[in-house]
């Protein structure tokens, strides 16, 4: 491995102009796509072994996820929380951190928004809505930001800590929703008090998809700008490459780690805000549906690029949107989606070993062929 890196200089001027640039860029698109297809292929073999038809599976997924205007609405409504959840993985990943507990920030952000909405039920929406957004983002940001702080100041492994905190968050939510914050009128499903109509988030006009999607896409674009076009993003990428070197260079590594994790957590909190205000109408156990975990896979598939997260999240949202129909039509258990995600995840991680192995993607090595 050392020989290989020594023979290819880190920065080479592209000798083949536009074609060379295209070749270099396409590696990051083609390899993940190929890995995705391999994951699908392994899953198809798995289905065949069960005597189920993969063609039927993918045809039904297409129909229920992307086939009609209605299925697109269903898919896109699920995309919003997945985008936020994936950003919560992708932002810390730029610093080399594997944070997988976004679910905790989603859940607590949702509870914070629901509680604030119940508290400010009498005041005008102009005050209540910003307060709800802020409380969701602050709670989410503190939750995941503390994972970053623990990592930097105490050396606590962020992967384990964040997942443990997700379990703690769900227990906290159950405690709050069934105890102090419970609306006495919610009998079967303990919830916070239902939100007043003016505090709820509606649909994007003409789309029948709630505003969360627009904000989530905007956040992806802003996150991309932050990482690719600002000094902070540049510093974060340096620190992610080699933390010790970054410290020696005098970069504020601690502040970067806490800042990026807190930002990711704040965005996951926003996912909780939109789930409560646009989907459920109150905070309850429905907040913990696993969006945070699907977000991990999305971020890895998108190679932690915030813009690539958008199409990948739509694709996976389509799979989740179609899972109900597939369960009924093909008599498959609901865990089928999880199995598919597992195969795709493993395939994408294995593809990491292929980067730099193909001459096609390295213009500087074309002539030596």
């Amino acid at each position, binding site marked *: *491995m050392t020989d290989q890196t020594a023979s290819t200089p880190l920065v080479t001027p592209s000798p083949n102009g536009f074609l060379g640039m295209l070749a270099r860029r396409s590696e990051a698109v083609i390899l993940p796509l190929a890995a995705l297809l391999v994951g699908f292929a392994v899953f198809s073999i798995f289905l065949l072994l069960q005597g189920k038809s993969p063609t039927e599976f993918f045809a039904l997924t297409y129909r229920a996820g992307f086939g009609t205007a209605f299925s697109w609405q269903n898919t896109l409504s699920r995309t919003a929380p997945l985008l936020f959840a994936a950003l919560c993985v992708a932002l810390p990943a730029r610093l080399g951190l*594997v944070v*997988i507990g976004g679910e905790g920030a989603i859940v607590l952000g949702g509870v914070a928004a629901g509680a604030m909405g119940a508290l400010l039920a009498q005041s005008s929406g102009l005050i209540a809505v910003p307060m709800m957004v802020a409380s969701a983002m602050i709670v989410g940001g503190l939750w995941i930001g503390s994972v970053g702080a*623990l990592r*930097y*100041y*105490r*050396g*606590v*492994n962020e*992967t*384990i*800590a964040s*997942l*443990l*905190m997700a*379990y*703690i968050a769900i*227990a*906290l939510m*159950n*405690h709050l929703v*069934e*105890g102090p914050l419970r609306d006495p009128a919610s009998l079967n499903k303990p919830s916070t008090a239902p939100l007043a109509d003016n505090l709820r988030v509606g649909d994007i006009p003409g789309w029948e998809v709630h505003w969360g999607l627009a904000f989530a896409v905007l956040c992806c674009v802003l996150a991309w700008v932050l990482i690719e076009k600002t000094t902070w993003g540049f510093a974060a990428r340096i620190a992610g490459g080699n933390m010790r070197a970054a410290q020696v260079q005098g970069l504020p590594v601690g502040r970067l780690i806490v800042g990026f994790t807190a930002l990711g957590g704040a965005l996951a909190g926003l996912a909780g805000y939109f789930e409560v205000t646009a989907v459920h109408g109150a905070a309850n156990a429905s907040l913990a549906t696993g969006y945070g*975990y699907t977000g*991990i*896979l999305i971020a*890895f598939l998108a190679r932690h690029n915030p813009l690539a997260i958008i199409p990948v999240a739509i694709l996976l949202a389509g799979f989740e949107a179609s899972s109900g129909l597939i369960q009924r039509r093909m008599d498959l*258990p*609901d*865990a*089928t*989606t*999880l*199995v*598919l*995600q*597992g*195969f795709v*995840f*493993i395939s994408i*991680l*294995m593809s*990491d*070993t292929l*980067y730099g192995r193909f001459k096609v993607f390295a213009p500087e090595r074309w002539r030596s062929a």
Partner: protein
Amino acid sequence: MEDLGLWVIPLAILGGAIRVSTPFLFVSLGEVLTERSGRINLGLEGTLVFGAMSAYAIAYLTGSPWLGVLAAAAGGAVFGLIHGLICWLPRVNDIAVGIAMMILGMGLAFYFGKPYVQPVAPDLPSISFGWWSDVPQVKAALRVNVLFLIGAVLAFAMWWMFRATKVGLVIRVVGDSTDAARAMGLRPALIRTLATAAGGAFAGVGGAYLSLFYPGSWNEGISSGQGLMAVALVIFARWNAVACFGAALLFGGAGALGPTLQSVGVSEGYYLFFAAPYVLTLGVLIATSSPTRAMTGAPGELSITK
């Protein structure tokens, strides 16, 4: 009920510690084996759940709980083997592969386990050490499962293996320095893969205990992070198998806190007591980690402590 007063609580926690600790013990022993070889397998949560499902299904189909345990161990070894083989590839991150294996393990367990949620499988046998007492709570607390005893023996056996045998030394060398291991003519990737497979088998047995003894049924909520907590527990136990035994008992006691308080009628803040093991794990991680000095006892090649 006899008048035991508040003694009921420590007694129930002791009994709970013995009952609840076994899965922690097996998973953490497996993880010690894997991490000592220089690799971390975060996927043991998935292995634990898959082990629980396969043990329950096989025990139900064959009528023998021990065949179930065997199946869980075999399934766990396969999961560990896959993890090890994938990590054999250069530039593949073992932590991320663990997350993927966690998702796949849970997915496959829920997928194949659906038909076994209803049926009742035979339990693993247990030995009553409470014969000398006629207090029912004491008897219940001292009803010890055979797997717990096996786990305790294995903990001491593994401690001895790492201390005094060639196999133990080989694993430790591979875990401390890939270069030194190569210089000695060892094959680090192969040894790590075998250690991960063996670790997976341990975690599978931990899962078998969950579904075949306590709580003793199979459902999708059978483990909520116990495999993950066991991985954290290994850091706390400083990669020492005997310390894992003590840590597992401590965590088992914390896990028994919620149900115990509920059984004596404390319902206020039930969910918060439920979170006690996670909070304890996190607290222990914070207390025992350090940002500056390398952790004592940590294998040199381990990615989480580098």
